[in-house]
């Protein structure tokens, strides 16, 4: 019975939060926290119920069911944890803003929708929760007035996705006469290849839009940028990755591994993998050109989504494990980065990378979050992002796909450039004097940053903790065991031991520190007390932040444009012109209209052929 109660708590909690908001702000905040905490506890307890399902409602003779398996639990726990910390973060970030009752309700509603999506056992429930999630997301993206057009962009694409899912569900129903996922899985072998491809395509369009796979990504950068920081964390961390859940569901749970590998694949896997690879390269290099901190991260969200798609679309055991694990890792570090940027924006009121700088002394915790976040994003060894990327690279190389591997690796090197710019332009370099009075971020912002920073290091040094669950998901989907150990991967084709690296680093850094201490002691000086080869550096001048990679930009700018957006804009102009031309046939003169009618009648007569 825990299963339905979880969802009931999630939904009723959201509405009660709205109602209590009318009474007292403090009570509302407390209730929002309590609901999020209760959900975290419930989903954690579901660990003991994995493999169960529960029919909760009957709709036109079809039982709507909830179920929980390893895959849904994995996504569920990530959803509720991120939600909890986003709510805590909102307490200070959203303080004093308007329509807060609505904000908290929508936050919890999105969370409830995501929980519903991962736990639904049939496609009717799936579709309903998917829609609840999408529409509350739309309201949150356009929560600020600037966000309206971004929200509109999102919802148009989202509706296309929903239609596509609906069509897919009906195709499935026409074949099997049921909506139940478990029943469909059993009968999957009867499906003809043509229908399999149709179903895959329909669902992949929908999940590709949600996961911002190129060329369906256009909604993402604006949506991430224009919304409130706590929700950016949720949308980037988990909501976008509902697309990943969908991909895993359709490719490996519904279609089944063997079917995906043998019948449909060659081509399907090939196309999806390359779309993923292109997404990686374009996403990360366009990110490099951005000057808005949130937009930079948003493009990385697209790029990293490419890694996940590449991982699971490639379809070998290690790459799929890497793809699933990367979903979690990405959620952790991107949430952390958005929290850090949010803290900076909260204090300075801007996130323009060209005008910030030198905040490290003023906001040390935000800096720590930023540093560990970008380390995870790059995949520096001993942070979580490394292990998942290692799994993907290894599988691509050993299965002789060096070009895909090259796309993935070069994406990482592009990432280094852009995230270093991100860190440098916010926290390092010169501090503009207008920010000299900046205070530290409040505790309710620091706390989530510290928690997620710890998670990055913990999962980087002991990747076995989450990888164990990933392995259980994989075994459930029919893959062979990976050889997961608490310290990494033990496999015949190449092992990884992060614990070894950790101890090596620990010993070496100790040695280096001893070496440093035995040398002549250094003198602490101010940041501004620098040597400029005899020149004088005036304050607030010569801050090398604007156009950080100017020589490079001139070279790569013509290549890495937002081609899809440009295409859509061209299409819009073309459509406008065409409509304008068509409009001109309405001249407003009665005689001309009569002429049209006569001509049309003549045309009909010609069409019949017996005018003479």
């Amino acid at each position: 019975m825990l299963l339905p109660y979880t969802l009931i708590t999630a939904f009723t909690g959201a509405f009660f939060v709205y109602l209590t908001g009318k009474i007292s702000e403090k009570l509302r905040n407390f209730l929002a926290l309590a609901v999020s905490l209760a959900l975290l506890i419930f989903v954690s307890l579901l660990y003991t119920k994995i493999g169960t399902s529960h029919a909760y409602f009957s709709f036109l003779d079809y039982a709507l069911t909830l179920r929980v398996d390893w895959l849904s639990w994995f996504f569920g726990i990530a959803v509720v944890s991120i939600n909890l910390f986003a709510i805590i973060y909102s307490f200070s970030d959203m303080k004093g803003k308007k329509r807060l009752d609505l904000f908290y309700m929508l936050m919890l509603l999105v969370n409830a929708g995501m929980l519903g999506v991962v736990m639904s056992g049939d496609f009717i429930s799936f579709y309903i929760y998917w829609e609840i999630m999408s529409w509350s997301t739309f309201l949150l993206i356009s929560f600020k007035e600037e966000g309206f057009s971004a929200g509109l962009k999102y919802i148009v694409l989202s509706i296309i996705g929903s239609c596509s899912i609906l069509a897919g569900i009906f195709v499935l129903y026409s074949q099997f006469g049921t909506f139940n996922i478990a029943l469909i899985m059993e009968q999957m072998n009867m499906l003809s290849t043509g229908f399999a491809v149709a179903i895959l395509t329909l669902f992949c369009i929908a999940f590709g839009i949600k996961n911002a796979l190129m060329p369906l990504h256009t909604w993402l950068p604006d949506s991430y940028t224009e919304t409130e920081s706590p929700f950016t964390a949720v949308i980037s961390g988990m909501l976008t990755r509902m697309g990943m859940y969908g991909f895993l569901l359709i490719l490996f749970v519904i279609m089944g591994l063997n079917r995906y590998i043998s019948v449909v694949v060659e081509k399907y896997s090939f196309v999806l993998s390359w779309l993923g690879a292109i997404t990686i390269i374009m996403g990360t290099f366009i990110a490099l050109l951005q000057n808005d901190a949130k937009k930079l991260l948003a493009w990385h969200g697209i790029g990293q989504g490419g890694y996940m798609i590449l991982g699971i679309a490639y379809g070998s055991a290690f790459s799929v494990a890497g793809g699933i694990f990367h979903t979690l890792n990405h959620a952790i570090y991107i949430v952390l980065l958005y929290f850090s940027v949010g803290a900076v924006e909260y204090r300075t009121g801007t996130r323009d990378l060209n005008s910030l700088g030198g905040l490290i002394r003023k906001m040390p915790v935000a800096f720590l979050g930023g540093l560990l976040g970008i380390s995870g994003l790059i995949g520096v060894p001993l942070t979580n992002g490394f292990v998942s990327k290692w799994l993907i690279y290894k599988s691509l190389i050993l299965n002789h796909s060096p070009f895909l591997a090259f796309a993935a690796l070069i994406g990482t090197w592009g990432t280094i450039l852009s995230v270093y710019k991100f860190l440098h332009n916010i926290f390092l370099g010169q501090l503009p004097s207008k920010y000299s009075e900046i205070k530290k971020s409040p505790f309710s912002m620091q706390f989530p940053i510290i928690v997620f920073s710890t998670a990055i290091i913990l999962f980087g040094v002991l990747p076995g903790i989450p990888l164990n669950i990933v392995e259980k998901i994989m075994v459930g989907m029919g893959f062979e065991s990976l050889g997961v150990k608490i310290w990494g991967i033990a496999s015949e084709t190449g092992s990884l031991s992060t614990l070894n690296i950790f101890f090596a680093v620990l010993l070496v850094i100790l040695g280096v520190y001893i070496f440093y201490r035995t040398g002549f002691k250094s003198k602490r000086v101010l940041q501004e007390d620098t040597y400029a080869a005899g020149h004088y550096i005036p304050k607030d001048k010569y801050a090398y932040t604007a156009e950080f990679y100017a020589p490079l930009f001139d070279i790569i700018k013509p290549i890495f444009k937002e081609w899809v957006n440009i295409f859509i804009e061209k299409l819009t102009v073309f459509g406008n012109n065409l409509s304008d031309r068509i409009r001109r046939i309405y001249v407003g003169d009665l005689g001309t209209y009569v002429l049209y009618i006569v001509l049309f009648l003549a045309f009909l007569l010609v069409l019949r052929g017996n005018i003479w």
Partner: protein
Amino acid sequence: MVVLYGLGSILIAFMIGILFAGIARKVRARVHWRYGPPLYQPLIDIVKLFHQQSVSHGFVFDFGIFFSLTGAIVTLFFIPIGNIVPLRESGGLLVVLYLMLIAPFGIALSSVEAANPNASIGISRKFILALGYEIPFLLIILSVMTYYGTISFAEIVEMQRESTWGIISMPITGIAFLLILPAMMGLKPFDQIGAPQEISSGPEVEYGGIYLAMSRIQHIFLVFINIALFVSLFLGGGPEPLTFFLKMLPVFFIVLIVSTVYPRFRIEQAFRFCVRWPTILAFLGLLFVVWR
């Protein structure tokens, strides 16, 4: 035992690296018709710096330089110097790829905590150049890993010992690697990062005393790692450290001779060079490996 191996590889790398630094100064001087400092001058410099007063700009200034030196040393542990490989089964060549970027990343964090625009410019140049040479470098590493069908560094070296050297099986790829070696080691014509006449040594501008010493040691290790990579991947490594060193010597000389006579490129010229000839060669090499 592992700890002993670790200390052994640090010691060997340091000795070879510092000898190379000495040779570099001597050779450059002789090409310039000067007498040049003694061979052990870099060691004297480090000992001197060790005892000099220095300034620190804060926690990250210290931490970054530790991090950088640590990254360089941990990378060493993955490289088979003869039969000495402290960390054999810990992730292979892919981990080396990633560890190699820790050293510059540490310097990048450390040097810019000081509000010195010269350091920022230097780091920005470093990353642009790094992107330039990483594109061919990744293609080269991928060619090698695909050719031998493994990601384990030690296995690649052993397989070369059983058959022929990598430079014979993959000549184009080897040449591409030789072309980017000076860029990877920051030697002329690719020394825009620390260009002393333009940006007063770039990232090193705020370092003095022990910091400069650590930065120098890090660079010495980096030179060693880059040449060792070439020797291990294309010249079959060495059964024991001495052969390994003897194979490293000619490679270093080739790079050095080129570097002594060239002036400095502008950064965009350097980037364009890296993404043009070495990349084309490395790409052809990879095609050759795939269609073999």
